[in-house]
């Protein structure tokens, strides 16, 4: 059942409802008993160094009443001065959904004496617009010291008949010693629940007990944020509840068949204009075109259509003035020349079919947001779509709705993900292509001269390929030439570990869907050569800055996640000043760790230094246990990049 339908039902219930009863606070006004152990506690061995911990959390939701409500209880032990900030409490809520009532709060000093909160909870308007009021109840607790326990409880009263999907977030900013959760589902709907990121160690799965779904958990770790981590949503322990009509489908296969049929009907209903599409195809391709050429032409044509999903959001006045007509099918889109991203893809699907290709719409789940698991049976997570075309017997995934994506390349969140390939039977699961690291490259070719003052000067050409080109074009799509120039120059500044002068010398092709984006620069690196008495030293890692601080910390909590496999290839030539000699070259550096490869070689070609470097990362996700191996790999990279070429300057330079 859609959210909209649920909402309408809620409205209906509201109309039918009698006078709103005042319900008692579900867990009463009583406070939970406090133990001496809690009072004396100075630290939590399972969360060493924590500023504060939840001693107890409770969430009780009752959806099975005209006046749904959620009771929340929190008891927090303050362990450090920093932890006192948890005494500032803000409870945000949407006024259209309900209101916060019955706030009670108190501070328990370490000696057990109690200071009740008797002040006022301030009403804060965080955002207020027509039809939207996002408010907060804000208060702070008195006399909070290290060692204090603070606790508060309140009830979130939802409007009459207001029923919607909810969730229990178990992973909070603070460690939780004990948590207790319950939900009394609305009996008019079927309820399904899942815990996609698993449950804390030792926690039993939530169970339906006498009309309540219940869960108790202990020792829930605090959630931590790290670099290179997957979407937070995928790592937080949580329980998601989804209401639906009728009897919920328990078999994933059957669930997805049913969902797939619904989605397929929607696609077929939009694309079912065979004749119009055949006429359109005839305008795009020539009969003599090979299948590759035909499909490429269709792709290029469709991608050039106006895609409203990529346009800056317009105000209502602008939309009215533009008088855009609703696009109901591919024929409308073809005639009017615009549509949103999904409609654009469906047009491509229809044209490909009309051109004789076997083609399917594939609903996928973007891995920037979800790590899709079909057994969870959450159709909301299929939040994107691509088109699968059989080209010369090979599966080719296309997404002409992604601006600047070359034919056959998907944006990175769409690569290597499960998708539901739709057909009238409901469909089947496929996995989209993940381009190898060699397809997403940054190639840096520098032709430089070393000046007698130790600076490098010359030309640099950077070629971005595949996904490396695509994300840059997307990011800069709304910028002007001045900003794009700065963007590229800043990228070069990020590559080189010292201050540089860099000037973009060409006009890169920002507007096309070609596989590469080429930028040329005039480059000057002052003081690149360092002194060693009579000798001069040239570090070999000119473009080594991004790796300098990668994975610098020894500890790691979460898996390491890369957006896509990629390769960096550097080719640097340095002409030496007249009379300068190469005294020694560093040995060839290299480490092939299969999923990651590094090599670096420095050569002396009769007065010209030649340094080549390659860094392949064929990784997407790495288990946290393998973090030391990854860290070690990058330490090898940094060691290699720090090698130096020893030069003997000419007589005049040496004297300086």
């Amino acid at each position, binding site marked *: 059942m859609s959210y909209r339908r649920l909402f309408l039902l809620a409205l209906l219930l509201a109309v039918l409802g009698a006078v709103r009863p005042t319900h008692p606070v579900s867990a009463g006004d009583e406070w939970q008993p406090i133990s001496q152990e809690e009072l004396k506690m100075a630290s939590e061995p399972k969360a060493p*160094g924590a500023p504060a911990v939840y001693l107890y959390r409770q969430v009780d939701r009752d959806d099975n009443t005209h006046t749904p409500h959620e009771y929340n209880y929190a008891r927090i032990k303050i362990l450090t*001065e920093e932890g006192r900030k948890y005494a500032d409490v803000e409870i945000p809520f949407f006024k259209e959904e309900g209101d916060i009532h019955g706030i009670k709060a108190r501070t328990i000093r370490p000696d057990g004496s109690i200071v009740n909160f008797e002040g006022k909870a301030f009403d804060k308007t965080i955002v207020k617009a027509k039809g939207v009021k996002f408010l*907060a109840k804000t208060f702070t607790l008195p006399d909070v010291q290290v060692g204090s326990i603070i606790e508060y409880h309140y009830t979130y009263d939802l409007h009459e008949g207001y029923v919607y999907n909810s969730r229990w977030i178990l992973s909070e900013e603070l460690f939780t010693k004990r948590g207790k959760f319950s939900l009394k589902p609305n009996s008019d709907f079927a309820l399904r629940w899942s815990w996609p990121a698993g449950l804390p160690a030792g926690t039993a799965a939530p169970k339906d007990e006498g009309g309540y779904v219940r869960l108790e958990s202990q020792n829930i770790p605090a959630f931590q944020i790290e670099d290179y981590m997957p979407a937070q949503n995928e790592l937080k322990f949580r329980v998601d509840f989804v209401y639906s009509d009728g009897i919920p489908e328990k078999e994933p296969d059957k669930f997805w068949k049913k969902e797939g049929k619904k989605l397929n009907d929607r696609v077929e209903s939009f694309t079912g204009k065979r004749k119009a599409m055949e006429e359109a195809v005839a305008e795009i391709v020539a009969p003599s075109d090979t299948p590759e050429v035909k499909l490429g032409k269709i792709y290029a044509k469709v991608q050039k259509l106006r895609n409203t999903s990529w346009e800056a959001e317009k105000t209502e*006045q602008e939309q009215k003035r533009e008088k855009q007509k609703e696009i109901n099918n591919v024929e409308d889109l073809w005639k009017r020349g615009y549509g949103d991203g999904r409609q654009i893809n469906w047009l491509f699907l229809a044209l490909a079919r009309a051109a004789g290709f076997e083609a399917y719409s594939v609903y996928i789940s973007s891995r920037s947001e979800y790590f899709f698991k079909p057994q969870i049976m959450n159709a909301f997570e299929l939040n994107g779509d691509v088109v699968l075309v059989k080209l010369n017997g090979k599966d080719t995934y296309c997404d002409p709705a992604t601006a600047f994506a070359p034919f056959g390349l998907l944006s990175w969140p769409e690569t290597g993900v499960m998708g539901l390939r739709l057909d009238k039977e409901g469909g089947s699961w496929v996995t989209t292509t993940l381009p190898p690291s060699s397809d997403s490259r940054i190639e840096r070719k520098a032709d430089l001269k070393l000046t007698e003052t130790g600076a490098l000067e010359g030309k640099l050409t950077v070629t971005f390929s595949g996904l490396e080109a695509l994300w840059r074009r997307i990011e800069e799509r709304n910028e002007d030439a001045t*900003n794009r120039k700065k963007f590229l120059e800043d990228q070069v500044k990020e590559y080189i570990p010292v201050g540089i002068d860099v000037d973009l010398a060409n006009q890169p092709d920002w507007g096309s869907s070609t596989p590469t984006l080429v930028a040329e620069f005039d480059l000057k690196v002052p*003081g690149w050569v360092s002194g060693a*008495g009579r000798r001069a030293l040239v570090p070999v890692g000119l473009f080594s800055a991004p790796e300098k601080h990668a994975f610098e910390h*020894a500890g790691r909590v979460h898996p390491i996640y890369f957006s896509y496999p990629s390769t960096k290839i550097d080719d640097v030539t340095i002409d030496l000043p007249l009379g300068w000699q190469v005294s020694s070259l560093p040995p060839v550096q290299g480490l092939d760790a299969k999923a990651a490869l590094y090599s670096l070689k420095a050569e002396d070609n009769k007065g010209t230094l030649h340094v080549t470097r390659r860094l392949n990362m064929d990784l997407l996700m790495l288990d946290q246990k393998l973090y030391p191996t990854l860290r070690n790999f990058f330490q090898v990279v*940094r060691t290699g990049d720090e090698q*130096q070429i020893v030069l003997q300057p000419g007589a005049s330079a040496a004297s300086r």
Partner: protein
Amino acid sequence: MWRVLLCFALVVMGCLAGVPPCAAGDAPAWMHALVSAPLPAHDEKTDAVLLYSERIVTVQSADKFKITVREAYKILRPGGREYGTVTVSYNSHSKITGLRGWCIPAQGKDYEVKDKEAVEISLPKVDGSELVSDVKDKLLRIPAADVGNIVGYEYEKELQPFVLQDVWRFQEANPVREAHYTLQLPAGWEYKATWMNYPEVKPAQSGNQSQWIVSDIKGIKHEDSMPPWQGVAGQMIVSFFPSGGSAQNQGFQNWKQMGIWYQGLTSGRRDASPELKQKAASLTASASTPAAKMKALGEFAQRDIRYVAIELGIGGWQPHPAAEVFAHHYGDCKDKATLMGAMLHEIGIDSYYVVINSERGSVTPETPAHMGGFDHVIVAIKLPDGVSEGSLVATAAHPKLGKILFFDPTDELTPFGQLSGALQANYGLLVTPDGGELIALPELPPAMNGIQRTAKLNLSATGTLSGEVQETRVGDRAWSQRWALRTVTKDTDRIKPIETLLSHSLATFQITKASVGNLQLTDQPFLYNYSVVAQNYAKPAGNLLLVRPRFVGNKSSDLLETKEPRKYPVEFDGPSRDSDSFEITLPAGYEVDDLPPPVNADYSFASYHSKTEVNGNTLKYTRTFEVKELSVPLSKVEDLKKLYRIIASDERNTAVLKPAAH
């Protein structure tokens, strides 16, 4: 967080589907008059230009101002689209009416939006900000805010002023073509206008109305480490004086008057309750000297009183009563200063409020007395005769009060007796029973803020360096580490600042042992002690071994490695003195073949000295970097750039080892 909220508000604006739009109307004549106006001078990086701004201040009485604002921008680049979102602040003492916005597109009809389409927002809970405040913003999104189009808006604000003053901030990040300020006073009233960072402009006078016009004002582009905005932007500060000077809230002729106003605002607020008296007595009972007593009270105010700001109306200026602050154990900067003053009074020591700006340079001796210059309150303590503890260094001699000690009860990581760099050499309003005066705060010696690193290391023939490092930090350098560790949420993360430091200098390293000393003892130096192993530290080159004597730590900066010439002075955080001493025992079988030269760079604002020596089989690197002046004027910025390059070069210099001759 604020950005997130703004985004959310913009999304809400975008989602107001189904709300009928206002009837579109033409932009007003004042905007159409700008369509063919010449643009002020600008470069290709300018996002937008302010074509016209107008601020009309009508003083209706001492309790009521009416301010009309009109502004129009021409959007030149995509970044200028943000000027299509109008933000107007107000609070419980002011009301916004008649908010309207327009767009004159390069092609097509004008757009108009009205007040009822505005979104109202206020700041959610953010660490370090007000927990509760009555300040809100109205956001109005103007349609078609695109490159080439002109967007403009106007509104009226009615307010009950806390004081009879207004500030005209006519200079901004973008170039300004023309800005008008009109002042309409009741009969018999007078005003005093003071210009800051811009030559004075005389007004056109007509009866009780005065009008100022400035044009072709350059935009102020942000530069890192530049002086604060208030210290560089053109503005006019106007105070109003009713006939007969009867109003309580009249403008300030001078700092003395502002001090009197603040004195009135805080009157009675430092009265102690019995519980507070008892607490002051118990806190100081075991202290044997006045200095020890003051320190005990200071640490209580800093640490036991939690920072919580609840600012409603005049509450942005007026502190809560000391008794209340004590009872709740929380308060903001002025509350903490109030409590501190009350407790000092209990032990017979006088103290005074010092109203200040937390960014040095915002208020200078040239600044006229006005409210807008300040954002913080600290305490000046009149030191009793005979108190001369060496730890009390943040002192100044006052002609009437004698020796006074400045103390910031909000800054819980700066020990009693010292001041953070931002407050040093700053100017604050000292509030005494006689009124107020703008006074200079002391500048502490560079040695009171610095890092002293010593390392004793062994180098193996395979290039591995290992040994012990000790780091001693004082002043702001200690503050920053204590702050970083204070917000660490688990023990294992305490090592991260060291890892980050080492990663800037070492390709490969393992920390085998580490400890933190004096984390809580803020009156003691902060200590790091750690053991480190760095493989491949020395690089082989043929039969040579290349060793960088500078083991860790970076003093150089690429702050001035920019394409565009610097426009503003460089401001340092505070005076400082850092020193390194690294001893590397060389591997057997090697001797030094070549050493980097010593560096001696002396400038008026800073100095850098380094040298590498050989003592037997030990390579010793020592250096000091001292910041002597807090501001580097434009005329010396090239010298600073040169200094940073010298340091960078020294930091990369290498010693060459060769096989020892047998």
